[in-house]
């Protein structure tokens, strides 16, 4: 499946932006070739089939799998690279690759940009002096509407939901699709962990609020299957409009 990635650079001149974008997209292409579970020849696919061992892979593969293992522990097993059977670290790779891409743009001097990879957003700095990035959160049952808007700088905003591609998040403890929630949105200092946590919280279902409440440095907004929204105390800092509801 394809994914739309948009990169919005607000501060570099044409030449610097070209260089930065070239590097970022070369990186994303490499990540795709290495970690795609849809390409039989990718290292992750061959590793999953035990055709090669970890030592044969790029060092990033070890890093990713180590991090995923820590995430599995940190999420009570709900973030699991084998939740669907085959080895699939996409739940971390997507956000992580965007986090690295953002860092690459920063190395080229960009302190104001926004990357959106299939609905997971990483912003750096502010879009213009005097205001924050305004990131709309899609309503889980009406994709043409927004359920809330968060105003952020230097942050990752990840949303995990079920409606778009069918029930694609599974509870690794039961093997069943997660159906308690419609969507989980997490705002954190970066997009790699926010994305993984959102996936895990979605799989947790009704257990998610208790876990999210205690999650440090990340604030959450949850819409359950009944259409009710719940959010952490700190989330209203990003979405002041929620305070008056």
């Amino acid at each position, binding site marked *: *499946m394809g994914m739309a990635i*948009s990169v919005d650079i607000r501060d570099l001149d044409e030449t610097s932006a070209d260089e930065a974008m070239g590097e970022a997209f070369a990186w994303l292409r490499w990540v795709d070739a290495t970690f795609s579970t849809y*390409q039989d020849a990718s290292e992750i696919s061959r590793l999953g089939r035990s055709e090669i061992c970890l030592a044969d892979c790029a060092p990033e593969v070890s890093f990713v799998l180590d991090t995923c293992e820590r995430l599995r522990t940190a999420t009570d097993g709900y973030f699991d690279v084998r939740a669907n059977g085959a080895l699939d670290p996409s739940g971390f790779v997507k956000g992580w690759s965007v986090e690295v891409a953002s860092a690459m743009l920063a190395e080229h001097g960009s302190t104001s940009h926004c990357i959106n990879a299939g609905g997971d957003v990483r912003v750096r700095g502010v879009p213009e002096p005097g205001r924050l990035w305004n990131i709309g959160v899609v309503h889980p049952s009406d*994709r043409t509407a927004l359920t809330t808007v968060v105003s952020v700088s230097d942050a990752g905003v990840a*949303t995990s939901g079920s409606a778009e591609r069918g029930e694609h998040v599974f509870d690794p403890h039961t093997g069943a699709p997660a159906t308690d929630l419609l969507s989980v949105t997490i705002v954190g200092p970066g997009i790699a962990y926010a994305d993984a946590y959102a996936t895990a919280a979605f799989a947790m279902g009704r257990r998610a609020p208790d876990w999210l409440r205690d999650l440090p440095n990340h604030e959450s907004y949850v819409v359950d299957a009944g259409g009710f929204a719940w959010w952490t105390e700190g989330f209203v800092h990003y979405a002041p409009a929620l305070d008056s509801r």
Partner: protein
Amino acid sequence: MKRVLAAFALTIAGLYFVVSFRSTPVKSSIAAPPAPTRSAAATQPESTVAPVAAAPPADRTIDGPTIWNQYGPVQVAVTFQGKRITNISTLQMPSDHPRSQYISQTVAPWLKQEVLQAQSAQIDSVSGATFTSEAYAQSLQGAIDKANA
């Protein structure tokens, strides 16, 4: 200010293709004269800058190719002002299947929203709806390729 839109396959991708469409957003109105823009296929990083005349170029709408997926045909039309995307409309979306009906109603507006809203002043980007319709992106890419040809 730079804006680059790129549709391509990431880790969940079965098909790999890439396009990047760069433009300079116009501040308040899409009718304003565009600043110098550049559009280049990412697979050809060496391609040269395409200067744009100072006068606002006329809108032109280009139909993307019809792409078939398991639910049926998908085709979009992209409206350009110079090298800037100003509109994306859906010419064909499968509608004979309940699931496709849902996709037809919901997915197309999102990507359009993502492409267009990011150029508006109020909402910079949109989180959620990991829309991954390969067919939609392929048709979009085809239209952009045609525009650049």
